[in-house]
């Protein structure tokens, strides 16, 4: 039975990691058009979540956690918008390096992984309740 409890904990850690990833993706999408607040200020920089497996010392299981949230170092998008209040002398505005399509794909992946963990929890729960039902046999 303790193995099943462990598996619940592991799956829960997976769900937690995926929902944090979801939060970061939401931040990216929400800020897809956030330019800097003055002509030379930098716009919002895309964030990337990295996972790592971590040994849970209490149960000996390999849980998952978000190891770090890093900034995407790729180049900003430069758009020619002379009428923009934050445009530089040449009329260009820096836009965030967020590609909404990439974020949407990432979001789908997070959703699928979340569902997979949920599935495992359901099966573990079924196994536990079947074991408890043996007492009624």
């Amino acid at each position: 039975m303790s193995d099943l409890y462990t598996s619940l904990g592991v799956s829960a850690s997976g769900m937690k990691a995926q929902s944090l990833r979801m939060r970061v993706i939401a931040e990216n999408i929400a800020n897809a058009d956030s330019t800097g607040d003055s002509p030379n200020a930098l716009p919002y920089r895309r964030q990337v979540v990295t996972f790592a497996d971590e040994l849970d010392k209490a149960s000996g299981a390999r849980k998952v956690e978000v190891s770090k949230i890093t900034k995407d170092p790729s180049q900003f998008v430069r758009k020619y918008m002379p009428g923009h209040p934050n445009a530089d002398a040449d009329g260009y505005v820096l836009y965030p390096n967020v590609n909404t399509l990439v974020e949407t794909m990432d979001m789908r992946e997070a959703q699928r992984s979340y569902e997979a963990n949920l599935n495992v929890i359901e099966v573990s729960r079924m196994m536990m309740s079947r074991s408890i039902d043996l007492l009624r046999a």
Partner: protein
Amino acid sequence: MQLNNLTLFRQMEQKMHWLSTRQSVLAENVANADTPAYTPRDLKPFTGASSTQLAAPLIMASTDGGAYMSGSNGASMIPVVQKDREAVETSPNGNQVSLEDQLTKVGETGMDYQMLTNLYRKQLSMMKTALGRNTTA
């Protein structure tokens, strides 16, 4: 009466232990489905008891000596965790977990567990019939 002294019950218990350990290993794999450089793990296939282990209950039938109290002597099957040999796909970040495979295994484990708890209950009700105080079956 100790149910574990009966070969069938002992084997069922071992298999259930094996299945719940496997469930927690599979949960680790699913939780780490997006962790870079993670390799999935699985248990060594369940082999059940060998013929010498099957003969063990006959030895334990003797009432003299401590052997009677010791329960199963060396017949216990300890689940061994090993690298998942079926993992062949590697994603660009070095992760080798195939979510489909893992979820198939989770489903398999859940169904096997269900079968075992059913078997356990049936066997128990058969024994109750023999004892003459079973009303349902």
